C-alpha cells in the first residue's frame, strides 16, 4: 500500500500562490468577503505563511497545508472518528460524521484545519464552476486538505479500466499539478525508487515542527546551498 507524501522545495517555491487557487477551484472551497477574511473566516486548504525556516534569516513564504502526519494530533482527539488516518497515510475528514466541535482544529499545531462558519455560497452563476468530484461541505463542520483524494480514486478507476497498475504520474493533487516553479513533488514515500522518497532523504529536507513528533508526510526542502 502506498504512503502518499509531498515534497516542497522552498528553494524553488516562489510564493506565487498558484497552488492556492488550484486548490480552491478543485475542491469547491468557497470564497470569503473582506470582513470574513480579517476575522479568520477565510477558508483555504493551502495558503502561504511567513515562516522561519532552517538556514535562512527572516521569514520565507511557505505553502502550508495539512501535513498528513503519520501521528496526527487531530485524529486522536476527534470524539466521533470523523477524522482519521487512512491506510494510505492521508489524514481524512469524513464530513457527514463531523459534529463541528473543532477539537481537531485546536489540536492541530499547524492550524490547517478549517471550519465552515456559514453555509458555502457561490455568487450567481459561479455555482456552476464547482467540481462535481468533490462534495460541498455544509456549515458547521471541519474540512481540510485531502491530497485531492478524489483524484486518486478516479486515477485508480482509470488505471483499473485500462488493466494496469497506478503509475506515478497518474495521481497528483491539484496544487502539484499547477505549481509553475515545479517546486512540488508528490508520490509514494515508501517507493524507494520514487522521486519523493529520494527527495525526502535530501540533506535539505526538514519537516515542520518535527520536534512535536507528529511525523508529517509533507516534507520541505530548505532554501540555500
Amino acid at each position, binding site marked *: 500500500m502506498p504512503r502518499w507524501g509531498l515534497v516542497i522545495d522552498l528553494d524553488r517555491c516562489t510564493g506565487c500562490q498558484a497552488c492556492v487557487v488550484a486548490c480552491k477551484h478543485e475542491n469547491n472551497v468557497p470564497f470569503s468577503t473582506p470582513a470574513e477574511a480579517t476575522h479568520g473566516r477565510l477558508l483555504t486548504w493551502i495558503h502561504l505563511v511567513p515562516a522561519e525556516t532552517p538556514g535562512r534569516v527572516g521569514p520565507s513564504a511557505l505553502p502550508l497545508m495539512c501535513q498528513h502526519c503519520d501521528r496526527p494530533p487531530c485524529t486522536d482527539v476527534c470524539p466521533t472518528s470523523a477524522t482519521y488516518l487512512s491506510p494510505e497515510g492521508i489524514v481524512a475528514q469524513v464530513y457527514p460524521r463531523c459534529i463541528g466541535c473543532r477539537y481537531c482544529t485546536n489540536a492541530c499545531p499547524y492550524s490547517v484545519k478549517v471550519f465552515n462558519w456559514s453555509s458555502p455560497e457561490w455568487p450567481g452563476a459561479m455555482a456552476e464552476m464547482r467540481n462535481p468530484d468533490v462534495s460541498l461541505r455544509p456549515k458547521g463542520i471541519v474540512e481540510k486538505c485531502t491530497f485531492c483524494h478524489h483524484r486518486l480514486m478516479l486515477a485508480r478507476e482509470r488505471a483499473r479500466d485500462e488493466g*494496469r*497498475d497506478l*503509475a*506515478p504520474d497518474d495521481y497528483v493533487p491539484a496544487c502539484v499539478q499547477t505549481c509553475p516553479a515545479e517546486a512540488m513533488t508528490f508520490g509514494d514515500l515508501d517507493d524507494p*525508487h520514487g522521486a519523493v522518497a529520494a527527495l525526502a532523504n535530501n540533506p535539505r529536507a526538514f519537516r515542520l515542527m518535527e520536534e512535536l513528533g507528529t511525523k508529517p508526510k509533507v516534507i520541505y526542502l530548505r532554501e540555500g546551498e
Partner: protein
Amino acid sequence: MKRMPGIVSGVVLTAILAGAVGSSTHAQTKSVLLSVELPDSPTAGARLFAQKSCVRCHSLGGGEPRVGPDLGRILFSGTVLDLAGAFWNHAPAMREKMQDLRIQPPTMTSGEMADIIALLTAYRYYITELGGPGSPSAGRAVFASKGCVHCHSVNGNAWEQPGPNLRRYRGRFSAIFLAQAMWNHGPEMASAMQGLGLKWPKFTGREMGDLVAYLQAGNGGSSEERVYFEPGSPRRGRQLFSDKRCLACHAIAGKGGRGGPDLGTRPRELVGSVASIAGLMWNHSQGMTAEFRRRGIPRVTFSGQEMADIIGYLYFVNYANVRGTPARGAQIFVDKCSTCHSIGSGKGIGPDLGGVPRLDDPIAIIAAMWNHSAKMEEELRKRGLPWPRLESGEAADLTAFLLSRRDTSAARPTTGASR
C-alpha cells in the same frame, strides 16, 4: 499480409553465397549478404520512441539528463545488426530500471523494431550533427576564402552583387537546401566564377559544416521560401537514383554503371553529415558535368525533396548491406542459445526455433528476441546463468545462421515480403 505505412523491413535472406557452390564445409565459413529492406520514412520511429516509453529513459540529443544514455550522443559505428545486438545487450539493465520507474516493458512487432532501428540509424547519420555543430566563425572564414563573398552577401547591402542575398535565409538554412542550391545552380555559378576569374573551390573536412553553421547563425530570416525538407525516403531515393541516371555511372555494391565510384563500397564517406555529402557532391559536380556532357546526358537537377531522398538513400545503402557468417552463427548458437533452444529437434526449455512462425527476416528475429527477453531473463536467473551478450558482428552471424536453418526457400521475392 497488410502493409503499414512506414518502413518496411521486408526481409529477405538473399543468401547469396559469396563463394562458389563448392564444398559445403567451405561454404560454411563464407559470409552471406543479409539484405534488409530500405526504410521508407526513417523518422517514423520517432513517435514509437515516445510510445514505447524509450523517451522516459533516453533522450535523443539534449533535453534534461535522464536515466539512460542519451542516444543522440552515442556515435555508434556498426551495422544495423550490431545496433540490434546492442539493443539486446542492454535488455537486463534496462528492465531493472523500468521496474523501478514502473514502466511496462514494451513489446515490439518486427515492423516497429525496424522503425526504431531505422530511426536510430537515421539519427546517427543525419539528425545529429556528426562531430558536433559547425563553427559559424570558421564558416565565415570559409565563406570568404572560398570566394563565396564575391557573389553573395549575408548582410543587408548586396544589391550590387550577382548572387542572391543569403540574408533572407538567415537563421533558417539547411544543409540539404545548400546542397540542392549548389547542385542545381552549379553550372551558372561556374560560369559566373569564370567571369570573375575565380577558381572552382573544393570543400574538405568540416568546411561545409562550418559554412552551413555560418549561414544558419542568427535569427533574422524572414523568408517564406521553403528551406526545410522532409527527411528523405531511402526507398524513394533508390528509385530516383536510377531515374536520375546516377546508376549510369555509380554502382551500388557492384550493381550499376562504371565511371563513378561504387557507392556501396565507400561507407565511411557516406555517413558524414549532410553538409559533407553536399560538399562531396559539389566537389565532384564539375567533373560530373563534364562526364554528363560527354555521355550526352541532359543536365540533372533535383528538387529539394529529391535531394533529401537521394541523400537518404546514400545513407541507407549500407543499412541494407550486412554480412553474416552462418558458421560463426552456429557456434554462437551453441554457446549462447542452445541451453534452452533447439532447432528442429524440438527439445529444450524454450521453443524450437525451427518451428516458430514468422521468424523469416533479421529484424523479425531481433524483435522476437527482444520480446522474449523478459521471460528468458527470468529463466536464466532461475538457473543462475548469465545474460548472453552479443558482441560486434555476432548478431549478424547468428541471424544468418538462424535464417539459413529455417525452412526458407532461398528464392523469395526480394521486395515482396512485408508485414
